[in-house]
């Protein structure tokens, strides 16, 4: 069953300040969807709302399946990768252990993913000791190892060098080709152009534009999106 989400008047407030919303939107995550917008636009909050880990102040959001099913078929990669205080092998195995996968199968998948992210020689290294790029690749692999239907990524390439960014993007494209839908935030227009099939443009906590990438980057429907793409400072 295809996962789709319906947001109805969704609003997130913190200390009486509106961080996100009101948003009413039908999301059909297919391919790679980029959530674009300047810093403070509400991209992270939007992603967390979709993943169901952000409490709504008002409105409601539903997936086409039950909340538990939706969460089980999703994964989330944080901007600052959270490493368990364990080895690379144990970090990769962790999500699979949670769902009770047999040990032999876990070992096989862990080896395979370690190869894919170039950490096969570092399986016994303590994960928090890895470099920033390696940590982010490990976090991505840990998210994808359970073969989720949808993976959310919050600026996964922020603070990474060009090489690491390219490696992460290659992993994302492969995962997408393997059938995982990707919803990713970024404020780098270049990265959005390289990856996006669909774009959601957020500004000031609201969706200002959403379209297929090809038309979004050529004929933006709002002045704010056009200004952002032109490199102007948009607030």
């Amino acid at each position: 069953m295809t996962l789709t989400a319906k947001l109805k008047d969704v609003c997130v407030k913190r200390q009486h300040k509106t961080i996100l919303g009101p948003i009413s939107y039908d999301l059909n995550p297919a391919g790679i969807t980029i959530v674009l917008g300047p810093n403070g636009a509400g991209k992270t909050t939007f992603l967390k709302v979709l993943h169901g880990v952000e409490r709504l102040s008002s409105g409601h959001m539903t997936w086409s399946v039950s909340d538990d099913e939706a969460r089980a078929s999703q994964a989330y990669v944080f901007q600052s990768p959270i490493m368990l205080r364990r080895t690379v092998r144990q970090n990769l195995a962790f999500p699979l252990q949670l769902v009770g996968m047999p040990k032999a199968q876990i070992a096989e998948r862990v080896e395979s993913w370690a190869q894919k992210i170039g950490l096969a020689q570092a399986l016994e290294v303590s994960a928090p000791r890895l470099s920033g790029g390696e940590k982010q690749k490990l976090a991505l692999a840990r998210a994808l190892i359970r073969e989720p239907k949808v993976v959310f990524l919050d600026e996964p390439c922020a603070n990474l060098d060009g090489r690491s960014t390219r490696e992460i993007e290659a992993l994302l494209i492969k995962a997408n080709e393997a059938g995982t839908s990707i919803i990713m935030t970024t404020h780098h227009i270049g990265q959005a152009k390289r990856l996006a099939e669909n774009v959601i443009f957020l500004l000031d906590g609201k969706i200002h534009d959403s379209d297929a990438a090809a038309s979004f980057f050529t004929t933006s429907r709002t002045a704010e999106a056009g200004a952002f793409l032109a490199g102007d400072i948009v607030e």
Partner: protein
Amino acid sequence: MNDIWAGLGSAFWLIVTGDPDLIEITLRSLQVSVSALVIASLIALPFGTWLAIRRFRFRRATIAALNALMGLPPVVVGLIVYLLLSRSGPFGVLGLLFTPTAMIIAQVIIITPLIASITHQAMRELWAEYHDLLISLNTSNWQRVRTLIYDGRRALLTASLAGFGRAIGEVGAIMIVGGNIDHATRVLTTAIALETGKGDFALALGLGFVLIALALIVNFAIHVLSRTEREGRW
């Protein structure tokens, strides 16, 4: 100063001659304190971790009470356990008063809040670090507790060792509920109190040195076995 040297000599002599009384009360001290530590850890480690991750109405009050209980006067604990286990008390029928079991019960009551409180402090920091990841992985409360306990095991070891330190050196409560009966409930601390009362300072000091050595050996042994402070390990 002479007493200290005499105490050292006495301790050395007791150990090299393998004094049977010393061995008996040392083993009993270990039996009581390690049993109390295991029971208290089984209660306090999950409870302290659970307290770190759960939000409920009286959470603050519970934490405040737990911190306050760390300073429980052992003599009062001993008195309460005595009253509960005495013939006229609610558990008198069990006949546990003046047995090592009564001493273990008293020590569990004394060290559980200490271990739980240190666990809560350590797990609170680890939970702040892991919170988003464990929530996003849709983990159950039990899986969260297990993950935190596993990854925070070094800090929990410290919490347990603090509990062991308090248990092995405790005298007030176990004197009341154990009665310091020779060949039955006498342990190192109560023996030291007895010998001091009798004016045999050399023997009391000797037992004191054995007690200190025992605490150090147990601490070192646990650190070695659990491989703390190793390069590249958490």
